[in-house]
């Protein structure tokens, strides 16, 4: 498998570390316990497209949001996690 790192270009999978679901969001300070349980433990396993966090540890050290098809391993999109996170902040703020 190869990932097209937005900073480094296409690189072999051995340069990256998989973390997991990029669709869960860290609850706020006052969130109830069940929200934290969901965030820490509960994961969907969708048949098809999924967004995941990968880490380019042997490259630029960027965390990446990878859109991957869980059935075919097709990679549709690789973007920097920091850009996704900043965009989410802007959307939440506006």
């Amino acid at each position, binding site marked *: *498998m*190869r*990932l097209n790192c937005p900073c480094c270009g*296409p690189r*072999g*999978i051995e340069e990256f*570390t998989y*973390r997991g679901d990029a669709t869960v969001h*860290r*609850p706020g*300070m006052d*969130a109830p*316990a069940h929200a*934290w349980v969901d*965030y*820490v*433990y509960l994961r969907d396993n969708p048949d098809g497209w999924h967004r995941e*966090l990968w*880490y380019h*540890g042997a490259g630029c*050290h*960027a*965390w990446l949001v990878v859109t991957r098809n869980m059935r*075919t*391993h*097709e*990679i549709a999109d690789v973007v*920097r*996690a*920091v850009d*996704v*996170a*900043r965009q989410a*902040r802007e959307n939440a703020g506006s």
Partner: protein
Amino acid sequence: MKLPWKKDACSHRLSGQAGRRIPANGIDPDTIIRFTFDGISYDAHPGDTLASALLANGQHLAGRSFKYHRPRGILTAGPEEPNALLELRTGAWREPNSRATVTEVFDGLDACSQNRWPSLRMDALGVNGLFSPLFTAGFYYKTFMWPAAFWEKVYEPLIRRAAGLGRAADEADPDLYEKTTTFCDVLVVGSGPAGLAAALVAGRSGARVILCEQDSVTGGRLRAERTDIDGVPGWQWADRTVAALRQMPEVRIMTRTCVFGTYDGGTYGALERVADHVSCPASDQPRQRLWRIVARRCIVAGGGIERPLVFPNNDRPGIMLAGAVRTYINRFGVVAGQRAIVFTNNDDGLRTAVDLKHAGAAVTAIVDTRTQASDMAQQVAHDTGARLFTGGAISNTYGRLGVHTAAIRDRSGRVRHVACDLIAMSGGWNPELSLTTHLGAKPVYDPELCAFTAGSFPPGMLAAGVANGTFMTADCLHEGAARGQEAAAACGFDTELPPLPAAPRESYGIQAIQPVLQDQAGRDSKAFIDFQNDVTAKDVRLAAMEGFRCVEHVKRYTTLGMATDQGKTSNINGLAALAQQTGQDIARTGTTMFRPPVQPVAIGALAGAHRGRYFKPDRLTPTHEWARQQGAVFTANGIWHRAQWFPQDGETHWRDTVNREVRTVRTAVGFCDVTTLGKIDIQGPDAATFLDRLYINGWQKLPVGRVRYGLMLREDGFAFDDGTTARLGEQHYVMTTTTAHAGAVMQHMELCHQWLWPELDVHFISVTDEWAQMAIAGPRSRDVLRHVVDPDTDLSNDAFGYMHAAEITICGGQAARLFRLSFSGELAYELAVPARYGDALARLLMKVGAPYGIAPYGTEALGVMRIEKGHPAGPELNGQTTAHDLNMGRMLSTRKDFIGRAMAARPALTDPVRPTLVGLRPVHAHDELVAGSHLLPHGAEATGAHDQGWISSAAWSPTLDGWIALGFLSGGPARHGEMVMVHNPLADSQVAAVVCPPTFFDPAGDRLHA
């Protein structure tokens, strides 16, 4: 039954050098090389495979079958060979299950048959055939079921001796292997007409092309057939084309290279047999090289594999695939028999009769299962003088070590016995689809071709030629060229299709996958489908009757399609037999999944150079060489090598050394390289806020020039890592992590910063390798340091107290960092200098410290002293303990958010009955405490129900003259003074111990504040 032409199986053994040869395109007849098979010396020519050389010497018999020990010969001329598996070489170089059909002969090659005793011709276990009812489908699951105790002692050893393949070498592999990666625009797999045409067009476009051919020579079937292209023999056209390709700078041709797997993202695995064809690799030359090829487009042009026909006793030596018979004639000049029968269900098989006749052999009969004689059949029968049995079948064969008679049943049902020493059989061809299916695509059945073809392709993959279900040579050339053009264009290289050379359009005329043929009595118990696993038509029938109707289940139940050949010659016949039984058509029966590797790959090749001491890199501290000169004993700490202790003359046991090192620190001064601790430089206006989020405790109020201990949790509330962080400037911090978690903490911080809190204005970088850091500990440490640091740094306790930090200069202006930290509990410092000065600093400390009795200490003494002080380390931060468990619950801030805050507050994680950190001292000070022991109430029986905790770290304390330990005990802090039992089930020992606070030495901390 009286058989009229009974003869010795090897009657056609020919005399003369390297056997009798006719002119051929693939060998050098003027050079003789010698090899041995089962101790007998034979001649061969350069270009020969073991199979061709054995056949040339009249040796059909090559091995004994897996279960029944039936004599087996050479079936194929390629990597799909199920029968002729041999052991090559001897001693540490011995390699079992090597296919004779792809093993190139070199001078001095030593080969042995396998799975036979005492000899190949006289195998005692051939009687297994008499017990064949025991070995039918699912025999593993049935015959040896009861009694259960018999499995290990009786059945398994019996089966292992009786049924098997070759013997692995019992020494370490002495050869070298390499792994490498390369990139190209177009990868072409296979160098037959389609592959060459594809490579030529893609190469001319300017694209970077890699052409992989698993064989030692290019040309594919063009070397095996008498096909003319552009008016010259096909193999000459192939050679010319390859010569043209070699002139192209962007084209790379790799022979002896099998592309064995398709992986995601246009990645392909290939194995190059660099030195398998020579007696010994050259110095430093790898035996094999594992390639990872990243290709934007891949053209699969690997040809096809011929199907055997399934008829009673179809496995005797001398019964071969028709295409293989032609390969041996045309490429190797070997005529596999002098009196041949051609048995086919298609026109392609008929070409064998023509080639045999042309090579001087007699073709006595052509048995064609088709009920209508094709034009070609009539023509070939006429030209070869063979008797044509249209609508006929071979219903049985005879000959113990090699076929000498075939029973031919004509369309009217009449049986004739015909003498023969060779049966060339063809059940049609299967496109070689493996590479197209590795990512999960399912093949589809093409009723016209009577074969499965690729239903869909992985992204970036195309196929051409026989591999794509295109069988005629002219069409292969055209399709290859078109795919080459298409692939190059997809990579941005446009080119025109060149004029194509003239080539034949051969007839094929297959009508169906041939159903199982039975003998006159209707039996098919010796009609083999899978030669390698001894699976017969009867086994498949039985499996179907027992309810195994899914092809994947039948595979597992009968073992059809398993082992080294992965059913390359048997899968399709097997599912055709299953379809015949279940009444389903073949298309609906489907095929089993192909998985990588297409051909066996040695584990050595997958490991490459990463074995032994090169399995992982060595990470050395800046003082490593100095420590080695001191005679240090080293220990592995992750990939770091750290000095464990520094033995001195007269010390006979490592504990003597460690005790002395501890006493030196406690009474004078010692130093220890602590460079391996992770160091992360953190800067920015939001650095303190960032630290707040990472650690459970607060950082806003830490003054510049001070250090603070911090504990990090994971988001699930369990402890993750600990360490100290110093504030060097208003917006500048330097964090230390544990050695083990340095990388993980860095990764965690990057996730926190990039994903959770991108708004924080903070930057950080690992500086672990930039700074050499030395702990200098003991009552005389300040005295020693005064000789190192420049005079403007005031080291007095008032000016530079406990937990102070400063950027200073040493040795007359050299920048350094000084921290007053103590892991040992003594007055102590950590001095950091640029890594390149680490060695010099160690030597300087030894020199200036000598008057104060300085000595280096290693990780073992470090560990003893931290246990004496009750500092948690790896065994305490084991991923299962919380801040409360570590007696750090009070550090958990309630005024800020931090990683793990919410989950750490779960009631179960704060329950006081949780095992909590305590100290333990044995009632008798010299009773040894062992880490991993269980803690039980005193007097309780040693059962799981009474388990109340465990010992995490234990040490002999020279300071306290007794054993001490840290452990986790249920409700621990409330039980100080209580006697518990320390149970070590491994040694079955019980030691009484008293629970105490975890700080054994100087609990008030007077010494470190001195």
